[in-house]
């Protein structure tokens, strides 16, 4: 498949993520949308990595051109996991105090 399809798909997923973050009120759903953004980036990186690898692969099947894109994906996964562990802890901490996970509750600092 041409690379354009992959780019279009991941840009669509990324936009769904951004719109979700900006419009939804539930913290867990906002969080899922952020994960969606990160995963669309993963998809894009793998697609680009394959794109750079394809001509080199045809010449030499053992070529490592473009492998850094796929390596980056692993780093994103690891960091996202670390971020989730901290983020969920913060959400639990807020739930214990307010018994709600709605971001509309978060207006004490406004005035």
């Amino acid at each position, binding site marked *: 498949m041409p690379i354009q399809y992959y*780019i279009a798909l*991941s840009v669509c997923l*990324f936009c769904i*993520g*951004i719109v979700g*973050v900006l419009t939804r009120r539930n*913290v867990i759903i*906002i*969080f899922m949308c*952020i994960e969606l*953004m*990160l995963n*669309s*980036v993963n998809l*894009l*990186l793998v697609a*680009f990595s394959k*794109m*750079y690898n394809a001509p080199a692969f045809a010449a030499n099947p053992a070529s490592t051109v*473009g492998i*850094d*894109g796929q*390596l*980056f994906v692993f*780093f*994103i996964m690891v*960091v996202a996991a*670390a*971020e989730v562990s*901290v*983020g969920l802890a*913060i*959400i639990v*901490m*807020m739930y214990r*105090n*307010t018994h709600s996970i709605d*971001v509309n*509750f*978060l207006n*004490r*600092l*406004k005035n």
Partner: protein
Amino acid sequence: MNAIILSAVWGVIMMFSSILFKNKGAFKYIAAIGLIVLTVANIANTYGCDFFNINTHEMLRYTRFGLFFNTIAFLCTLIYVLLSGKEIEKHGNYVAEYYALIFFVLCGVSILTSFNNLLMLFLGIEILSIPLYILTGSDKRNLKGNEAALKYFLMGSFSTGLMLMGIALIYGGTGSFQIDVVRSATLFGTFSGISFLEVAGLLFMLVAMAFKVSAAPFHFWTPDVYDGAPTVFTSFMATVVKAAAFIAFIKLFEVRIADTSAVINWGMLLSLLIIATLLIGNITAVFQQSVKRMLAYSSIAQAGFMLFAVFSLNDFAKEGLILYAVAYSLATIGSFAILAKMKDITFEGFNGLAKSHPVLAATNTIFLLSLAGIPLTAGFFAKYYMLASVVKTGHYLWLVILGVLFAAVSVYYYFRVIQAMYFKEGDAQAEDVTPGFKIGLIIVAALIILVGIYPQVVLNWLYF
């Protein structure tokens, strides 16, 4: 490599030290020893003595500029720990862990000052941010603290998502994560020799970095987070961390702006960002009632001044950024340390502080004068170098005039505090302070005046 490895190791040492020592007061000294070790190791690295010989395949590159900033960050943290250590101890039962998180943040700082690869930029930003989310929410029972932590976390991970999209697009355009890659190699989706994917990626990176350094119009999380977080940790967030984000910003755009300037007018884009930041930061700060919130908005305004360095990207800009980091960090750490001692943090709470606590009032005056950029303080030369760097580029001179005008606006809200301390009647309530704290404040104020008279004492270290 010294700074990165030792700061991570010392963070682990701090975590384990809570098993060995039961006395809360001990951790401050362990952290101070760690910071001195880090500073010495980093200076050794600057003069060519690297303890760890690791081949990073050019993913990290050590420059004089980056290493010298590390030294400044470690020394500022040392001053911060010595001044505000008591506040951290008062804060809860997990004192050693707070220090450990501060060391992990410093590990992120030292990666950010030496990255040469977008992967390292990403890891550095994350290692810097994740401990800060925890520190922001460290006051678990306080609803404002919870709210600030959640906001910071959501905004931080959102901007990380934007930055990753930028990195992926840059990779798609150039086929490499190195920031100084030879551009002739493989370009994808080119338009008159410049990859439009790369340009789109750079725009995403610009937005993400603007989020991190709290430049308008991506600043809206800053006042809430700085206000809600415990005052001690706000002081750390607003100084060392912010300056490090600027170092990363300038390193990232140093090469790329010149490369892509044929298709996109970076000068106009950045000057709009600067004007919006200066305008929103300064004008909103005027209307604040709480000094803590005023300092939060003023940190947005100061970020506008630091953006001048990203705009002009010449030698003056780098010197100016170093000087700005020193002047701004010292003054902010000092005035937050005083703020943490106050019972009432509104402007009225400072009424008559000069009568009850003359030393606090006098040193706070010097810190605020430095933040406002009055001559004979470090803040004056910091602002001067920033404006001079723009003058040196020869374009956008109206930006300099606007910068001076906004600096004049900032004098108003800084002087409101000074006026409250000296010229208003009242009984300002401050906690009892130890003589050591007072001596610390006087030393910081003396440093500010010293740098304000001889900025070369700092800048010479960049070259010799």
